């Protein structure tokens, strides 16, 4: 029983990170109808920027204050993501208003390659560390409840808290602020939004920036746990079933979907994996999402699609 709950909690923690990446997808899809495959590359890019800026700032400060160095790096990486958002809007999205979904999807694949190339050219292609002072040692909990207790990483716990906080903030942002409302209007219809005077271009920069910051947070958490390396870019592929499960347009969907997929992956790997040779995490997540799709084509929380004639 203790082991089961440990796996469960491990899954929830991993799921929180998937949620973060999925959130980036949802934000951009909601506001521009673009299915942004580059979200994974953005995580990599942001994490690379963070790791290197922190390293450089730390060296410049003489290694005296890790906190200050990290703060500078965070601001720097945030500014970098703003630059990315600006470039993407200025040179790509602006020229593709009202194109078809498939074309936009392909474009973001192109952006993925560019980001991966540029990121590694500027920041290098080694494995880097991000040290934001997260506690590494695990703690034993509920020892009196189960035999052997449950082992939990403090780091995971903090990460989950940060992710939850971010989700809360974004929900408020979308529902309560004028910018959030404008974003939702843009999502419904580009041209209609333009015609009532919503500055589409600025909105897109904002939303890509927000997605960039979400990517940055995801990158920091992930990077501090496993190191920053190229494989971070593939996290997009891990987060896709999450979005599908939760619904492409739903922020809560991204969260719940992430948790379900995180838990499902871990449990399936632990309990089914050994029977079939292991390594089933990835496709299990996809098949899980697929099964949900067959019953609810719009995902768990997506808006119902009605065909009109």
């Amino acid at each position, binding site marked *: 029983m203790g082991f089961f709950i440990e796996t469960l909690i491990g899954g929830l923690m991993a799921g929180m990170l998937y949620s973060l990446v999925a959130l980036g997808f949802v934000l951009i899809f909601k506001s521009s109808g673009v299915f942004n495959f580059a979200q994974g590359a953005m995580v990599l890019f942001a994490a690379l920027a963070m790791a290197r800026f922190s390293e450089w700032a730390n060296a410049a400060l003489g290694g005296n204050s890790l906190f200050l160095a990290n703060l500078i790096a965070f601001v720097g990486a945030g500014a970098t993501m703003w630059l990315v958002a600006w470039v993407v809007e200025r040179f790509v999205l602006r020229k*593709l208003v009202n194109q078809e979904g498939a074309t936009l999807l392909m474009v973001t694949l192109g952006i993925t390659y560019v980001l991966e*190339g540029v990121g590694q050219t500027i920041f290098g292609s080694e494995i880097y560390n991000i040290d934001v002072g997260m506690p590494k040692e695990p703690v034993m909990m509920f020892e009196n409840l189960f035999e052997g207790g449950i082992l939990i990483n403090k780091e995971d716990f903090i990460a989950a808290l940060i992710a939850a906080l971010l989700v809360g903030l974004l929900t408020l942002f979308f529902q309560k602020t004028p910018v959030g409302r404008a974003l939702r209007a843009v999502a419904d219809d580009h041209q209609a939004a333009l015609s009532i005077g919503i500055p589409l271009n600025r909105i897109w920069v904002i939303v890509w920036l927000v997605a960039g910051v979400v990517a940055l947070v995801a990158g920091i958490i992930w990077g501090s746990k496993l190191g920053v390396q190229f494989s971070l870019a593939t996290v997009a592929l891990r987060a896709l079933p999450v979005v599908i499960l939760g619904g492409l347009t739903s922020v809560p969907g991204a969260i719940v979907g992430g948790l379900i997929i995180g838990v499902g992956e871990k449990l399936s790997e632990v309990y089914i994996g050994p029977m079939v040779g292991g390594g089933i995490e990835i496709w299990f997540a996809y098949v899980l*999402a697929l099964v949900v799709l067959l019953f609810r084509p719009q995902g768990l929380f997506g808006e119902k699609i009605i065909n009109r004639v």
Partner: protein
Amino acid sequence: MLYRENGQFKTTYAADQQIFTIAQDKWFVLGIVAFAFLAVPMLADEYMFRAILIPFLILSLAALGVNLLVGYCGQITLGAGAFMAVGAYAAYNFLIRIDGMPLIGALLLGGLTSAGMGILFGIPSLRVRGLYLAVATLAAQFFCDWAFLRIKWFTNDSSSGSVSVSDLSVFGWVIDSPAEKYLFCLGFIVVFAVIAKNMTRATIGRQWMAIRDMDVAAEVIGIRPMYAKLSAFAVSSFFVGVAGALWGFVHLGSWEPAAFSVDRSFQLLFMVIIGGLGSILGSFVGAAFIVILPIFLNQFLPALGGLLGLHISTAAVSHAELIIFGSLIVFFLIVEPHGLARLWAIAKEKLRLWPFPH
């Protein structure tokens, strides 16, 4: 001779429904095919065959298959690589497990197996569409990646996980030199291109396009969505599966599941989008573009660096390749979202009127 259709009158509907209704088009394409069969084997060197021509032909075939599904039937797939893998591994198993199985038989059976998988993974398309479907097809991709890596039966319990095929021969014709491999692939691609063209101009092709353009209206005039979509998945997967088998048997010789990874799926989708959705020609143009570009960059960038007196490391070259490749994709999609084939069509339309455009 000017590019004109003047004086080419058609007196029967049969004549009007030929593949090429303009005589110049027909002669031009026949000329290219003749050139490809007769002249190219004498002109090209081994590197040309191995690095460019054979991959180009096989990937054209796969792109053609993807185009039937994505371009003609409007169902996005990100799992084409998986169907190549199914084709390759199925053909391999047919070849080694059944005594006396002829090569072409194995290739086609590989394609048929892939078609079956296509139908299976096409079922979600009956419920979901667009991007949801695209992600659903990724399920096929990751499942196949896993299956061919972990289930040892598929790889005939090979210890390294890679499988290999040697001694290709058809009716006593031993295919071992690059030129012979090239001709073998060329034969396939010509036949399949004609088949694709025929299907797209017949009722089945119209049903696919109707589903793509307006699925509700298509259903209202009596097209069964299930039949139209699943047949598109089946035919597309058949093409892709045969291409996969050729890729394994003829191009690679021995291969691992990584040869058919999700990157391959993206690559195929790039080909049809850059080449032109819903265009047979576009599949070829797109395949040529995607095959040649990296080779070109790989040669060109160090040369350029040398010219400027810079030494460019291999890592830098590979990063620059990513950047340029990505930018070009973005660029092409912005300039001509309908693909390179559209540029060709526009040029042809202008040419028909040239030099008097009004």
